[in-house]
């Protein structure tokens, strides 16, 4: 057979589509991707906080109780020991409040997302809707505003924790901790400067991939409308 005949064979495939999309398998594939995203977020984002958060709350609670008990039984301790003041009480409330402000919204936002995701999707369109919602949730979890809020609250709580531990151990004004409040803004400025110096602009590669995935899913969904 000469090459020209091979050309004719090749040209015959222009008459008909080469591939078609298999809806049920596409649905299964999309469902699996969605499940992987949910597992990834649980393992990497929520599970650690749901362990660390309550542990910190218990730690702060015990410290507060220890400080209160020490203040009642101060005669048993040397005179230079520190007793709990009103400001210590305020500090404990702020620290506990900060952790609650981290953990409770996390719990609620995950619960809200799970309520959407756990509903069975009987059609390709609904599977695409769930997929888009999951990607949007993942983008929200990565959003700079949310990350900054959580990091700031954890930082404040950790700072207070360390301060109160020092006071509980007899240091009335642990001045060596004073530079600590500068670390977070310093790290933030360093991070921004480093990104500028490296020429990194806009969103990171992970976020860009998520946005592309969202666009692809939206494109598929609009394709269902014909």
């Amino acid at each position, binding site marked *: *057979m000469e090459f020209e*005949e*091979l050309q004719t064979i090749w040209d015959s*495939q222009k008459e008909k589509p*080469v591939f*078609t999309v298999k809806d049920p398998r596409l649905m299964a594939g999309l469902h699996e991707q969605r499940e992987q995203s949910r597992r990834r977020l649980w393992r990497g984002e929520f599970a650690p906080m749901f362990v660390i958060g309550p542990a910190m709350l218990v730690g702060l609670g015990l410290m507060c109780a220890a400080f209160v008990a020490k203040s009642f039984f101060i005669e048993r301790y040397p005179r230079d020991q520190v007793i709990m003041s009103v400001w210590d009480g305020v500090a404990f409330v702020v620290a506990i409040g900060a952790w609650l402000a981290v953990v409770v919204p996390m719990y609620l936002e995950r619960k809200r997302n799970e309520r959407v995701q756990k509903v069975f999707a009987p059609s390709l369109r609904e599977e695409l809707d769930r997929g888009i919602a999951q990607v949007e949730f993942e983008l929200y979890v990565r959003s700079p505003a949310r990350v900054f809020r959580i990091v700031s609250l954890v930082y404040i709580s950790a700072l207070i924790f360390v301060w109160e531990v020092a006071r509980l151990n007899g240091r009335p004004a642990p001045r060596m901790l004073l530079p600590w409040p500068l670390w977070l803004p310093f790290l933030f400025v360093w991070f921004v400067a480093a990104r500028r110096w490296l020429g990194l602009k806009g969103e990171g590669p992970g976020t860009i991939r998520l946005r592309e995935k969202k666009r692809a899913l939206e*494109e598929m969904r609009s394709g269902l409308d014909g």
Partner: protein
Amino acid sequence: MDPDERQRVFADWLRNHEGLFFKVVRAYAFTPQDQEDLFQEIATQVWRSIPGFRGDSAVTTWIYRVALNAAISWTQKERKHQKGSQALEGVETAMLQAAPVADPRVEWLYEKIRQLNEVDRSLTLLLLDGFSYKEMAAMLGITENYVGVKISRIKAHLASKSREEIGNGV
């Protein structure tokens, strides 16, 4: 570029040049899972290339260039990492299902194309889709003379294979 416009262009290209995507996928990927993986890779690269398209070449030429480069890079990455497919365990291929072909010799032709090295595969696809030697040279970054030499060898090879196999009723 406006994101909505980019999306419109991408949808338009995918709709009007779907066959081109699938030809490259079939020529470079062997298993259904790999074909799906490569299809997604090519679609992603085409999406990324849209802002760079200035209209100084035909859309088909542009898409072919992007698709072939993506396919060659993908093949090299697959070979280097000895990576299997990204198939979902227990789930069959999601996207692609080969439609019944009018001429079963089309599948034979793809099989022969897949046996060639990456550059020869690209040249064969471009030749069969009617591109000139000059266009092929520009797309692949090789000289026109070299394209000519390669094409002669490819034509002779395919013609000889077809005489041996199709001629013998394989």
